């Protein structure tokens, strides 16, 4: 019984065997390539030629010439191909993608196939959205996945003449809830809110913004070390549309409470570990800059103090801090 026998002196035999197998594979590959070029040079745009490229691409999906040739053939015999062919083409790219998820040529071919689908365009692209959903389930922080998602969504919106913003917003929220450190999800949130506000898709804007403020406050208390959250907050604080939508009083309160929370969190951090939280220092800085710009009264200004701290704590950006220091009244 072969099961679980302790290995002995197999390695040399194994290597020899492997070399033999490799040689066979190389020969077969080379002959496939030769055949393909022959066909192409003979202007062979038949269904059989597609098979040739299939075998070749199965062995080496990065051979872009083969993809191009394949697309040329498909385009020229378009009228002879039925829906089943196109569905198989999608299946083919999916099989390849599972083996080689990072090869751009396969993605390109998939998008080309989706774009050229002879019918049921909307259904096809909606199906693609579920594919992206599954992808992002497996790796929710893959920005390639998110970029692809935006592309798919825009195609669906184009074909259906509707906006998916609200649904996407809920999707993004669920992704952030699962993992606050999902930078791509926060980034998408920015895109969505900007778009929704500009297209007037939010009924009670002030309420929406106030809920958003609660959301990010919850986030910084749950994890004050996560950069994704802080980048988002800086955007929120500086985004002119938000400032314009809130009343002067509401906006002042927003800034003031955020500053108080940041100070509280920082004080707690110093108390616990003796270290300052650089993000807290930075956000307070940004707030005070805006407050000065708006000629707002600043309660217990700490900018000078914090800038001096940041010069030491974040030496990479020390020149910026020195510059800001010089600009203080």
């Amino acid at each position, binding site marked *: *019984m*072969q*099961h*679980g*026998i*302790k*290995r*002995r002196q*197999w390695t040399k035999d*194994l290597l020899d*065997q*492997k070399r033999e*197998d*490799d040689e066979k*594979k190389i020969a077969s590959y080379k002959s496939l390539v030769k055949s393909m070029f022959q066909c192409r040079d003979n202007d062979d745009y038949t269904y059989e030629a597609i098979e040739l490229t299939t075998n070749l691409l199965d062995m080496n999906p990065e051979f872009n010439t083969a993809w191009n040739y394949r697309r040329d053939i498909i385009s020229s015999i378009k009228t002879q191909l039925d829906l089943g062919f196109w569905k198989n083409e999608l299946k083919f790219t*999916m099989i390849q993608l599972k*083996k080689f998820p990072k090869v751009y040529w396969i993605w390109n071919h998939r998008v080309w196939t989706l774009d050229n689908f002879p019918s049921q365009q909307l259904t096809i692209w909606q199906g693609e959205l579920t*594919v992206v959903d*599954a992808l992002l*389930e*497996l790796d929710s922080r893959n920005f390639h996945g998110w970029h692809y998602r935006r592309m798919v969504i825009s195609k669906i919106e184009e074909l259906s003449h509707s906006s998916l913003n609200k649904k996407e917003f809920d999707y993004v929220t669920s992704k952030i*809830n*699962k*993992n*606050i450190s999902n930078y791509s999800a926060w980034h998408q949130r920015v895109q969505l809110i900007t778009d929704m506000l500009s297209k007037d898709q939010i009924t009670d804007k002030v309420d929406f913004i106030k809920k958003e403020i609660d959301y990010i*406050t*919850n*986030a910084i*208390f*749950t*994890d*004050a*070390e996560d950069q994704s959250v802080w980048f988002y907050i800086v955007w929120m604080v500086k985004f002119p549309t938000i400032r314009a939508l809130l009343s002067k009083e509401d906006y002042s309160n927003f800034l003031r409470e955020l500053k108080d929370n940041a100070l509280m*969190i920082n004080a*707690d951090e110093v108390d*616990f*570990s003796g270290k300052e939280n650089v993000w807290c220092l930075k956000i307070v800085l940004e707030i005070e800059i805006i407050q000065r710009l708006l000629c707002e009264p600043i309660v217990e200004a700490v900018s000078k103090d914090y800038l001096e701290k940041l010069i030491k704590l974040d030496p990479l950006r020390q020149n910026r801090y020195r510059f800001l220091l010089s600009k203080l009244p």
Partner: protein
Amino acid sequence: MLSPERRPSMVERRPSFFSFQQPTPLIVPHLAGIEDPLPETTPEKVDVLIVGTGMVESVLAAALSWQGSNVLHVDSNDYYGDSSATLTVEQIKRWVSQINDNQIPCYKNAKLYVSNDIGPNGKYQSRTFGIDLSPKIMFAKSDLLSILVKSRVYQYLEFQALSTFHTFENDSFEKLQNSRQEIFTNDTLPLMTKRNLMKFIKFVLDWEQQPEIWEPYKDKSLAEFLVDKFKLDKPQVFELIFSIGLCYNIDTKVPESLQRIRRYLISFDVYGPFPVLYSKYGGAGEISQGFCRSAAVAGATYKLNEKLVTYNPETKIATFEDGSKVEVEEKVVMSPSQAPEYSYNMPEQKYEVHRLTCIVEKNCSEWFNNSESAAVIVFPPNSLKSGNKEVVQAIIIGSGSECCPDGTCIWYLSTTQQGPRAEMDLDAALEAMEISIIRESSTKIPEDDNLVQVTQDGHSIVNSFKLGQSFKEYVTREKVQLLAKLYYTQLTNTPPFNVVNPALFDHSQEQINKFIPNASDNGVIYTAMPSGEISYDEVVTAAKVIYEKIVGSDDDFFDVDFEDEDPMAMGNDGTAPTYDENAIEDDDEDEDVDMNRDDDNNEFVGKMEI
């Protein structure tokens, strides 16, 4: 004579799925006394004789056999597993009488009730139940799991996820909230509490590297540390200590409890959103049997119904009850549960573990998450009517584990409380569980428009008269049907708050050189009986310690190099597979786990179907 009935074996039940990446179907090796007949004779000479086929002994047998030692592994019972066995109801009946006849060392006070519904004329057949004598849960990041992967014994087993941990507080069961995700989305936690909890979680994941934070508290209890340093409140403190840390009482010291809490948190998300796994078809009984099969492949000889009578360290001859003898070149290792008469060298088993196991006629699905079939309930100190000083821990196993038929489940309760109080605590916990499952599974209070009314100024009031009626009605409607109830006390020499201490074995080392006249067990190394510990934590440590005593060092403990059946089973680009035999790497390496090797464990991790 072999047992009249036993559970279906690993070979008899095929794995419930097939891995497409396996070129040939898995062959589970046969084991003497199950698929193969018992050998008529035993070898004349062996390197190591191991007596008892419990967890520690079986892991040891496999480790030694793969290392090259010649092992004879025997058990006086007619089943495998010894103190860790998984038995049918009939086997349990027999086991209980044996305890009450003083035939099984280290067990006492066994009481059993079995309803007529279980039996040849009853609703349920005895062998459809697999009852663990030593119920355990396995952490996803643990040394046992590493060994299971390294030795490939995991291939004979199937595991299921267990993600539900309930804490019993104020007469109700609260589900655990421990991940950043749950803390973030929890609407009831105040903001500063969220921050404090997260601070602690981040700290504990790396606690050994931050002595400046915990060392000032190293002799204090964890509760003090959590309140002082992290400003946590009682509910969070209790959850962390008792449900996540699975500690036994409030006095557990800081370093031990931090280790236990960390163990839970790092196990989370290794294979999925759960920290713990449970073995299907039976827990420790199946796993120890798996290691025996592995040992058999590596050359160990197995014999059941073989009772050691005496060992003579001078002649190195071990004698069995049937008259056969074997010469043992190196060492004799024995479980205290197999100790023969006149075993004066056995260390005192002075700690008690009290257990109460019930078969309940309810499917208890209200307690399980999604598609899981098991849960853990923890009763912290002073949460029960009996005023328990020690924790009561309960594992609930549903029928999805194939350890009991549909519509039933098994409740394993245990406590490290010593003495007669223990039974009171177990009974109180049982009662609380019965009330809870009835409440959760009974039909809801009927939607009655007149039950809740809204007054003119917007307040809602409940028609208390009607509510009272509803409650009265459903409380008397149902009672939990117990199909079986088993009490027993198991003795151990592992103190209830420690994992096995290597120093415990030095005790027997002194005695190896000091022979007690007329003792039947001079020169024998005793293993440790299972303790009250709910996880398998102690097993590998204990096996390693003994391994080292025999072999000299534990460097090559399970350092096995398996020949792959198919050397052509290579990656697409023609290179040999570079996977690590260890799906779990050591703590000091990267936390990332290579999931590709655990095809068989993907049963519960969602697979992408496109």
